[in-house]
């Protein structure tokens, strides 16, 4: 194998852009008209490889063969725990559905980033319900059956009641939630 072939290999490998025959000849210190056989030999060296010598508009470059493109991007599965905020929003929706965003915020006492709702929807755990028949016709949120699946509930009815949460120590006795949260009307009377 000619040294010049390897010099061209080094030049093409390290180059930031495709190179013309003229540039290649200059850098490899070869006559321009002599360069083609060397390039052909270099191409043949990569014949059965994951790399190929390509020519576009008279410029040459070494590049990864397109057959291997799928290996250049890697999909990674990652499991994550829900953020505190997302858990709260989901809990409020589960217990108080159908519920508007304003009501979620009123219960949580903090603004709800749109991101939390988007993320929960993307996850398939909540969906938009019908619009509330009041000023501005705000949309409401509901949990989905995927939510029940993901949290191991046969149905929403299996969600422990607030009394049970209190008995279970999840809520201190002096909480400010009304007793039957499923009926959202009680929460927002007046």
């Amino acid at each position, binding site marked *: 194998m000619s040294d010049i072939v390897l010099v061209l290999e*080094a030049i093409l*490998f*390290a*180059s*930031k*852009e495709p190179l013309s025959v003229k540039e290649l000849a200059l850098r490899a210190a070869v006559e321009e008209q002599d360069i083609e056989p060397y390039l052909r030999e270099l191409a043949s060296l990569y014949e059965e490889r994951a790399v190929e010598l390509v020519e576009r508009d008279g410029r040459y*470059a*070494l*590049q*990864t063969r397109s057959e291997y493109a799928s290996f*250049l*991007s*890697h*999909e*990674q*599965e*990652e*499991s*994550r*725990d*829900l953020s*505190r905020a*997302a*858990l*709260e929003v*989901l*809990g*409020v929706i*589960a*217990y108080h559905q159908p519920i508007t965003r304003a009501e979620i915020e*009123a*219960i*949580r*006492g903090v603004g709800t980033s749109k991101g939390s709702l988007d*993320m929960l929807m993307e*996850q398939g*755990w909540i969906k938009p319900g019908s619009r509330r028949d009041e000023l501005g016709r705000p949309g409401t949120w509901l949990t989905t059956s995927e*939510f029940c699946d*993901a*949290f*191991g*509930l046969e149905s929403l009815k299996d969600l*422990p009641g607030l009394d049970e*949460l209190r008995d*279970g120590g*999840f*809520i*201190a006795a*002096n*909480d*400010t*939630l009304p007793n039957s949260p499923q009926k959202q009307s009680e*929460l*927002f*009377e*007046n």
Partner: protein
Amino acid sequence: MSPSIPFEEDVKPAMATEHVLNVHLDGFEGPIDLLLHLAREHKIDLAQLSILELARQYIKFIDEAVNLKLEIAADYLVMAAWLAFLKSRLLLPQAEQALDGEEEDDAHAMAQALAKQLLHLETLQGLTMRLMARPKLGVDKFHRGAPEGLKRYKNIHYIGNLYDLLRAYGDMAQRRQPVKIYKPIAHKLMAVEDAKNRLVTWIARVLGKPRGDVWLPLDAFLPVSSNDGLSRRGQRVAFFTAGLELAKQGAIDLKQDKAFAPLMMRARKEERA
């Protein structure tokens, strides 16, 4: 090898000739570096512990610099003083050494420690030069110039955990403020005092005037602005109460012809005790 290796040039001692040496101290990285340079310059073998010769050269160098009135950093002078001390200790006649054996050992230990430090730094300087002389990436060797690059996509799954959900909901319930606090609506009602002041003003205006003692219905005193039932009823109550009070004081007369008839008022002409 590539034509320019910047690092190699950097490591070359900045001071090449004795002449330059005499004029500059800036090129040295402190007294130890200067000592090393002097050792190389005068071919003093550090391994042989020729610390005396090195001390002589160093002191001579500093003396020259002082004579030239160069600014000399304190640590160079400290080193010179220390070396002078060390030299004198090492050169003590045998007899005196016998008297003070311990100190003589100290001096030798100090000389040895200095020699070791010099040798250590010299070794490291040599190794660093060898390291810098290696073919370097980006100078002698190259990664691919136009790599396609690798991509990574993350598919994130969130895990549903009922305990966490209940815990979060419960904690929030404890943290949260009541949804609505009852706040009674504050109605603007006329105060009795206000009604009384209005009546007193009226009395003062009409008293002793012609037709000043005409009977007027209580409702005639109510400000016209009030259309709302509650506030009008409030005014009526206020004027009624104020009227009773003023009647008791003898400022006005009140009368009602029959049950549910309009209540009539008039200013009283004079005090009837």
